[in-house]
């Protein structure tokens, strides 16, 4: 049956089987796959280090690691997860694969630059992994001076070089997306018809272009300070280490939005498709992405309420932080309203999307405690912060990534995965995640400080709960890996549009041909015009 047809068709995967054709590809779809492979390596590194951290915190004295060994472990976890997994995850994998398809283009604007950005990423990652395996680094992912620039005796320079190089990959990706979205849209695809996934990536690209160079510079100065002793943050010369924090967070707070905005874009697609409805308040959801990107650049000082900066600076940063919460709230309300009077089908991608809404809501609302000048003094640098940003980055960004991967997996590979397993895994992820991280809110309010390998004995019960939950969470990530790999060989052929989704990417065969579209599509509808979609069982001409 259709399996036969599937294997005979020439698509981007089987157009050329040589390794060379992959390593030198300029096809955005193949580059997306290359990124998927690369970030998977870093996800494994980050996840294993997380597991070791959680196991070690099983007892108050530290069950596995002490002192510098523990510090290197959490640094490795943070650096790999943030710079090498979360930031590239959705944009570089799904964004690369889907943006041209979604806007009816044959490729991104600069395909060779796109490939180069992958190599730059791999190069930066290699530096960082070499640094990790030849002694490690113990500064945390934040590289605070003067600890990082003068006092740490670990591989800070090499790691900083790795992170610096990877920044370029981010910049190049953002630049490519920005130009692609501006210049390569299909005829009729006006800005008000763009899928929200594209809007989210547009906002993300802006942050990548504007923010990354600043942190690149800050980290470069730390590296120069170590190698050449130039000492711009050295208190002995009159340098001010607090300025490093300003530069660092000027990027690293918006970087959180690099991680979450694409995920929000994914969720918009999923909610619309599985409710068979237009996104409620499309303009508001699209505009809120831009609002987040813009206001997100003005809130960095909320990481520094107890750093000794002036109380008036604190006031402004707190107020702006509250303002940036509003567009996020608007999104959540609109997604929820989208399901109203819809036709909701509980496929795995939707379960991930609903999980995202729940976890992001908790993560976002606990952010209000940290944006608050009164409570942040007590909460900052405690496990409350750890729990909060894991709710955003893991509960939000990674859950969105999983949802997106499940949604577009049939498009990427041409195969379906087992329904039952996928739904079970989505539920497991939600449960495991909450068990792992909810106890950390309570720990944080009780004063358990982050980045400590030992803690007072009264915190043990909650830490054991958290570690136990992490094992369930791990299963929630492992099961999809197994059945997704299984589906590559044994999965049913998906057909061009298994979810009956709107969107140009679903008008191509699965997997799509190397050149995406035989003929440049002409767009006549708004995004998510589900009421216009043909009824199932009445195949359009050209459908399989």
């Amino acid at each position, binding site marked *: 049956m259709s399996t036969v047809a599937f294997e005979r068709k020439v698509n981007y995967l089987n157009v050329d089987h040589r390794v060379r054709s992959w390593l030198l590809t300029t096809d955005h779809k193949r580059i997306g796959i290359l990124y998927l492979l690369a970030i998977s390596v870093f996800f494994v590194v980050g996840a294993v280090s997380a597991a070791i951290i959680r196991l070690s915190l099983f007892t108050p004295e530290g069950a596995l690691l002490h002192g510098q060994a*523990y*510090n290197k472990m959490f640094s490795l976890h943070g650096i790999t997860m943030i710079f090498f997994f979360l930031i590239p995850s959705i944009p570089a994998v799904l964004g690369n694969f889907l943006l041209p398809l979604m806007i009816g283009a044959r490729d991104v604007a600069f395909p060779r630059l796109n490939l180069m950005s992958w190599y730059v990423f791999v190069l930066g990652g290699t530096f960082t992994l070499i640094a990790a395996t030849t002694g490690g680094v113990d500064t*945390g992912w934040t590289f*605070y001076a*003067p*600890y990082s620039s003068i*006092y740490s005796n670990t591989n800070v320079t090499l790691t900083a070089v790795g992170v610096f190089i990877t920044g370029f990959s981010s910049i190049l990706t953002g630049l490519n997306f920005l130009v692609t979205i501006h210049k390569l849209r299909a005829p009729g695809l006006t800005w008000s018809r763009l899928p929200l996934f594209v809007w989210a990536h547009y906002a993300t690209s802006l942050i990548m272009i504007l923010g990354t160079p600043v942190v690149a510079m800050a980290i470069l100065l730390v590296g120069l300070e170590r190698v050449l002793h130039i000492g711009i943050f050295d*208190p002995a010369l009159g340098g001010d280490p607090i300025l490093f924090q300003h530069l660092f967070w000027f990027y690293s707070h918006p970087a959180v939005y690099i991680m979450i905005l694409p995920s929000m874009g994914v969720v918009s697609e999923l909610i619309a498709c599985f409710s068979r409805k*237009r996104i*409620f*308040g*499309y303009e508001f959801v699209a505009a809120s992405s831009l609002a987040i990107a813009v206001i997100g650049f003005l809130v960095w000082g909320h990481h520094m309420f*107890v*750093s*000794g900066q002036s*109380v008036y600076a*604190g006031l402004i940063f*707190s*107020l702006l932080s*509250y*303002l940036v919460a*509003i567009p996020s*709230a*608007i999104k959540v309300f*609109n997604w*929820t309203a989208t*399901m*109203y*009077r*819809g*036709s*909701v089908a509980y496929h795995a991608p939707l379960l991930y999307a609903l999980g995202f809404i*729940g976890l992001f*809501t*908790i993560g976002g*609302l606990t952010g*209000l*405690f940290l*944006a*608050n*000048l*009164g*409570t942040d*003094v*007590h909460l*900052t*640098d*405690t496990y409350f912060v750890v729990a909060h940003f894991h709710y955003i980055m893991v509960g939000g960004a990674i859950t969105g990534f999983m949802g997106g991967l499940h949604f577009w997996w049939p498009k990427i590979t041409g195969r379906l995965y087992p329904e039952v397993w996928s739904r079970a895994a989505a539920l497991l992820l939600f449960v495991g995640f909450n068990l792992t991280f909810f106890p950390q809110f*309570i720990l944080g*309010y*009780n*004063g358990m*400080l982050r*980045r*400590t390998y030992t803690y007072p004995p009264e*915190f043990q019960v909650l830490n054991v709960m958290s570690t136990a939950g992490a094992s369930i969470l791990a299963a929630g990530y492992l099961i999809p890996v197994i059945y997704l790999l299984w589906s590559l060989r044994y999965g049913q052929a998906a057909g061009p549009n298994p979810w009956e989704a709107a969107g140009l990417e679903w008008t191509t065969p699965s997997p799509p041909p190397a050149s995406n579209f035989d003929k440049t599509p002409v767009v006549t509808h708004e995004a998510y015009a*589900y*009421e216009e*979609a043909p*009824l199932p069982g009445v195949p359009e001409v050209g459908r399989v």
Partner: protein
Amino acid sequence: MVFGLRLFPEQASSIARQVDLLFLFLLAVSAFFIGLIFLTVIVFAIKYRRRSDKDRPAPIHGSLPLEILWTVIPLGLALVMFGWGAWLYFTINRPPADALEVFVVAKQWMWKFQHASGLREINALHVPVGRPVRLTMTSEDVIHSFAVSDFRIKMDVVPGRYTTAWFEATRPGEYRLACAEYCGTEHARMVGRVVVMTPEEYAAWLQGVPAGISLAAAGEKLFQQQGCAGCHLATGAGPGPALTGLFGKPVKLATGETLTADEAYIRESILNPQAKIVAGYPPIMPPFRGVLSEEQLLQLLAYIKGLAAEQKAKAER
């Protein structure tokens, strides 16, 4: 404590109750919205589940009144939260005038305290109950952070500058002090305790510990030893400006600027005197960077502060 689970830290300072109250307010608002979103999502997911593959729900484009509603209500709540938090932040950052002064020097990985009496402690700080305590802090190496969660306070301790924090303990007992800013290998063990005592116990403790000379007196000794006294004559007739009554007063600089003589100014003027020259005086003082330790600097600071207090007391008499 429930089954060995502690849900709230102790309220052991004057601001703890206020922080908890604000926290509970934020918690209530959050719980309401989390409940609202979860409930709505679940109800919609069940009520509008797909019954037939042929379902084609009617399109809804959105609703401006709803958008306005769910923009304005969160915005209003956010502003309330912000205002309340800001008000509390000012309380947390404004030490009362009559506070007991303690100087803190942090280093990898210990806390050093100097009381005004000259008494020194390491990793333990004894204070009387019901009396505001003002901490002037600096670090000898990297950034640390002074955190006592039972007091709900935390303030970074930064090399090269002074930061301040204050608290008023409301309950005798021992409270955990820890470093909250990651500072290297033994960051986790950079802990200590704040011992809060009744005034009687505190007085007895003060008696029982050999205090040596007071901080200001140590500063005065340094002032003589380092030759400061040779130029900074009390009359102001020497080559250096008089320091009596200087602290907290405006200073006119050679550049025409006027600034207040606070801790940061005095610190800079000792370490790097050329940075800010007082109007009418020659720029001849040598820098003391690398000559004085952080603790000695604090002693000098205490002495110079003391001169101002003395003069004020005299004037009042």
